[in-house]
């Protein structure tokens, strides 16, 4: 094993758990106009945020200390009272670098994101490492990786809290997820079935023996005391167990089936909690794309939209960030001109497939987006940009296609975690339906 095959040890693992990267520049904006900021100022000014298609009135307090800490790590703010050890509660002041970064964001948002990528990588090492790991897991299919979840059609009945046994039907559900991934997206979960089953079982048992949550009584309602949770949904717990197991199996110190330590340390590079925070962050940085809603995949489908290469070919953007082999990270950023034909074709084909499934011309745009992005290895951001151009071009007199988009919030976007699914933003409006037809020659 050669020394230069290792990633550097991260200088910190205290990653913020929020996904909304716009908070960084916005917080700098707040700091710019004040002598100093505290996390309470940020909470005051930035609290109302849009998550997916829902508005969150008040973020958790944890977010603001995370934000302060990360800005300090990046050197964009610093503590005023230097005689104290820096804490997240302290008063902070924007640095010169922070001012520069803020004006960069104002001028060129993508450039800011690239800078943030480097900052984050230098601090946590996860961004570059994660991309490399995806490529290590499934080089055959361009880094496509599936983080399993129970099949959508699987039915579970609620269970009493005390029924925590690892039963045959749970095992069967775990196995059928595995089989479905094997047949639909081969190679994206290269773990032996037995290992998979036993890891999920372990995770299940750990989760089942956690202390029972208490439901606090509703505020302003004089009534019962705190109540203990009496039942639980096995699907949720099994899904959590699967995520825990797969983070451990796929994103451990060694890539699956490769005898090589990525870091010179024993500790797992990311925990399941950090994994779920990093996915949306890396997606926003345009390093990867992921979706939880791909109909053929039980679970989360991830793939990189960037790659480590020796040189930067056209259609790629170089990020000043190297892997242990000395290759540079390149973001796939094709120009509209080079992609146009392919984009229209793929969009038309996928729209057609999805609309055949739902049976109406207006098809769920997000499903179309996910598959187009997978086919063309586009980031969600690029897709939004290209779709906007495509719609404009479709209005031209000689256009082959006619495209129309609608904003109705679909029923499936209103449920559970799906409200957090990234919408397609065009001119600041989230769209959810697309119709596309081809003009036929007479």
């Amino acid at each position, binding site marked *: 094993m050669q020394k230069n095959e290792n990633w550097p040890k991260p200088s910190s693992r205290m990653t913020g758990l929020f996904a909304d990267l716009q908070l960084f520049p916005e917080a700098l904006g707040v700091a710019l106009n004040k002598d100093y900021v505290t996390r309470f100022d940020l909470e005051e000014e930035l609290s109302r945020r849009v998550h997916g298609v829902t508005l969150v009135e008040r973020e958790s307090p944890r977010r603001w200390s995370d934000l302060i800490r990360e800005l300090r790590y990046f050197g964009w703010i610093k503590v005023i009272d230097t005689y104290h050890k820096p804490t997240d509660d302290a008063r902070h002041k924007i640095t010169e670098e922070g001012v520069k970064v803020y004006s960069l964001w104002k001028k060129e948002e993508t450039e800011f994101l690239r800078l943030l990528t480097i900052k984050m990588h230098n601090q946590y090492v996860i961004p570059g490492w994660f991309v490399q790991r995806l490529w290590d897991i499934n080089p055959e*299919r361009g880094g496509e990786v599936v983080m399993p979840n129970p099949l959508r059609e699987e039915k579970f009945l609620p269970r009493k809290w005390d029924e925590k046994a690892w039963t045959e039907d749970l095992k069967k559900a775990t196995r059928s997820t595995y089989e479905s991934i094997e047949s639909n997206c081969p190679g994206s979960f290269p773990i032996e079935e037995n290992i998979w089953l036993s890891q999920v079982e372990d995770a299940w048992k750990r989760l089942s023996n956690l202390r029972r949550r208490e439901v606090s009584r509703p505020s302003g309602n004089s009534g019962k005391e705190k109540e203990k949770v009496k039942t639980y949904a096995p699907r949720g717990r099994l899904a959590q167990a699967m995520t825990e197991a797969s983070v451990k199996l796929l994103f451990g110190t060694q890539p699956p089936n490769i005898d090589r330590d990525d870091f010179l340390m024993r500790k797992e590079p990311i925990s399941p909690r950090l994994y779920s925070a990093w996915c949306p962050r890396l997606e926003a940085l345009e390093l990867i794309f992921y979706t939880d809603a791909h109909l053929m995949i039980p679970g989360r489908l991830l793939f990189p939209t960037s790659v480590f290469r020796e040189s930067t070919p056209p259609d790629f953007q170089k990020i000043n960030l190297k892997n242990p082999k000395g290759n540079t990270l390149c973001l796939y950023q094709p120009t509209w001109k080079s992609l146009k034909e392919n984009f229209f074709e793929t969009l038309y084909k996928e729209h057609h497939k999805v609309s055949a*499934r739902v049976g109406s011309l207006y098809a769920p745009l997000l499903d179309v987006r996910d598959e187009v992005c997978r086919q063309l290895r586009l980031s969600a951001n690029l897709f939004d940009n290209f779709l906007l151009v495509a719609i404009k071009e479709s209005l031209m007199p000689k256009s082959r296609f006619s495209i129309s988009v609608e904003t109705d919030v679909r029923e499936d976007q209103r449920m559970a975690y799906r409200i957090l699914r990234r919408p397609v933003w065009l001119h600041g409006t989230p769209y959810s339906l697309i119709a596309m037809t081809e003009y036929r020659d007479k």
Partner: protein
Amino acid sequence: MTTPLFRKPTYTKESSDSIYNKLGFTRNPFPSKPSVVIGSPNPVENGSIYLESLHEEERRRFEQLLIPNPEKPTGRTIAFLMDYATPRGRGIGKTSFLFHQSKRIMTDLGYELSKGLQVIFGVYVLPVSGDETKFWQFTKLLIDALVDKSVVATAIWRLRAFTGAVPENVLAEVGDEPEKTIGNDQWLSEKGIDTFMLLPHVMERKLGELGIAPNLVKALSLYGGSPLEFRKHYLSRISNVEWRKEGGKILFEDLVKVFIAAGFNKGVFLCDGVERIIQAQNAKERRDFAESVRYFFIDGQCENTRASFYSLLLTLHPYSQELLSPHWIASGLDRFATLSGGQEADYTVYVHPLTQESANSLAIAYLDAARIEDSKNGIIAPFTKRGLDGALVAANRVPGKFLNLLNLAIEKAIEMGWETIDSDQIRIVIEARGKIESDKQDSQDALPPSQIDLRK
């Protein structure tokens, strides 16, 4: 006439020089909508072109379950009509089947069906989606159907005859259109019957003996003979509050007494689209619904249960079956009509998809109804056998879709000048209809690899 204000349409649907003459038809023989619209003036769409033999098995089953006959004097109180094959349920012919059965019963009041044993009425009921989530609304729907389909009026006409208020020689002149004779006060007056005083008086005394609500007695004796009048003077004046309180009594107590007095001994509600009720209900309403069905149809304290008068045929979609089942069981209805658990077959009329032969005869029935020359009846031209078979498979053996596809084929034939429609032509029609439907059958293979390889 110069102003367009008073212009009248000169277009008639079956003008003699229609484009369909080329193929020997007066119009497109097939329906453009793949569903039946009851009461539509267009014979192609209103379900009146009906092929008896198509649903022979279902008909037998229907009679066996619901119609009392010499071998089995009591029918089931509740039965179901379901699609035999779930994924192709739509347009399989449930509506036209139900409508036709109600028509069959009403032509001779069940004489033929019960082998002369019984006097029966059958009413086709179609709920409006979301409007009838409560049982009292369902009750109102049933009463509306009884009035609109002239069942109440028929009972009154029969009573007029039985009370002796109308003399025998007048009764002999009633004929095939009772609503214009015994149901029409003017006609009766012409025949010398006092419709102002005597007839209502006799009726009122007769109905009064039954022990039913006085205002209903009055309304029936004065206006019962005419559905429109009865609606105007009685039904439309009942408020929703009264419906909720009294609806059950009117339908299951008072009207049952009236019907029995009028010599009926069975009433069948043929209820289409029950899923529209079930799916709009919340859990509590579903439970209430099932409980009320049990009370009013099976073993509650009302005239209907004592006389086992009404029967209910519910058309269910498989999904509603799943929704309703727990409440059905909880209210104990599964002992009387099992909805789930494998024994539902005993209570269910299954509607089967088309076979090759029945499809041909169905097509012929429609073609014949539109032919210019009767001599050509009974053949499938301009279609070929292969053409029809192709269309049948493409339509998943569902009659509604099948007929709709044939409609498109005829249109295309006119447009393209085809003289025969073979499987090739059918294929062109299907393709022209858009690839959407044919693609649906695609099997799920593995996810295709991405088009772009970032390493190249």
